[in-house]
């Protein structure tokens, strides 16, 4: 059934897209780890989204649509391909059962934020991106599912694995730091 689009005065692309600029850039920089590449990626995202705006279905999630375009664009770059090649989620589950102070309590100290940043950078792309979407963008599971193009159940399981992996990585780093110093 055709629903005439009369509910809202048609929002222009830029009205919808420009408020997402900072978020998209931050996400792009986390994916690419490079300012110039992040800028290229964001530029490409806006370009593609503007061109494809007619095909965007009003009423669906615009933010998820934009993030999805950005992510798909990234995956076609060389860095993106490298990040996803032969990646097995199960393999990356770090052992988080070691004893000692919990990473969470240590992260409360400002000085340890740098360790968290490094850990996030080292996380495999699927874990890094889902954590960013969930914690930084505060997306709902549904939005994450739309952005990543995966089922809701996969969102939950991957998020759980990502958190465990991050925790394990942090514990490793914190232990190493302690031994190292």
């Amino acid at each position, binding site marked *: 059934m055709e629903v005439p689009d009369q509910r809202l005065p048609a929002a222009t*692309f830029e009205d919808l897209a420009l408020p997402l600029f900072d978020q998209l850039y*931050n996400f792009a*920089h986390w994916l690419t780890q490079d300012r110039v590449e992040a800028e290229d990626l964001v530029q490409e995202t806006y370009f593609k989204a503007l061109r494809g705006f007619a095909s965007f279905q009003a009423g669906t999630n615009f933010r998820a649509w934009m993030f999805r375009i950005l992510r798909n664009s990234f995956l076609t770059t060389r860095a993106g391909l490298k990040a996803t090649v032969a990646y097995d989620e199960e393999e990356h589950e770090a052992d988080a059962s070691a004893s000692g102070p919990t990473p969470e309590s240590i992260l409360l100290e400002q000085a340890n934020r740098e360790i*968290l940043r490094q850990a996030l950078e080292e996380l495999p792309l699927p874990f890094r991106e889902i954590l960013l979407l969930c*914690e930084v963008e505060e997306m709902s599971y549904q939005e994450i599912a739309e952005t990543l193009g995966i089922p809701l159940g996969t969102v939950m399981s991957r998020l759980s694995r990502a958190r465990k992996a991050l925790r394990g990585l942090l514990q490793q780093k914190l232990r190493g730091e302690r031994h190292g110093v």
Partner: protein
Amino acid sequence: MACEAWREKLDAYVDGELAPSEASALSAHMRECAACAAEALQRVQMKRAVAAAGKRYEPSAQFRARVAKSVSTKRRWKMRWQWLVVAVPAVMVLVVSILVNLSVQREKALGRRVYSELTDLHVAALASATPVDVLSTDRHTVKPWFEGKLPFTFNLPELQGSEFTLLGGRVTYLEQTPGAHLIYQLRKHRISVFIFPEQSGQLTQLPSGPVSALSFNLQSWTQNGLRYFVVGDVSADDIQALSKLLHNAG
């Protein structure tokens, strides 16, 4: 439910994705179970830490401007139309006000020129040894004298009962147009009355009403296609009184 089963749901709980009934059940469980509560706290702390660490990169202002510009065609057009809505009337107001201003300026310039010419004629006539060509206090003498000298005719007022006296008249020229120049006397002052055909040149554009020019008082109006000017060094009220007499006669 066992703690193990609850732990499975902790992520959804801290992410606010648990159904309300389940969430309140888990809350109730955590009030009883310190281990699960501590685990939930850890996850919230980690969420916050990641959120803080993840908000890290900011785009440069130049880059922001570049992208904004690249997607702003639509708005710029919209803006242009919105501008037109404002700009067109604004420009029209400006143009009209400039035109009005110009015509006011022209009117003023014209007024200054005509008034100073009339006062010159007035002063020149008074200074002349023969200020009038027809010397008569009788309007019935003065008026016919102009016949054949001017391409128009006019009526002059009966002055009995007024302070004014007619001294006489002469033919004069304003902007190459012949007209009547009458001289009246009030006490020791002499007042000039000029009558010109209205259609002569720019006189039509001249505003009516009293003016004060070079310390002369001047009154001007249009009547029956004729332009009247009353000029003198008497008060504006006296000028007005004579104007009224002429107007009523015309």
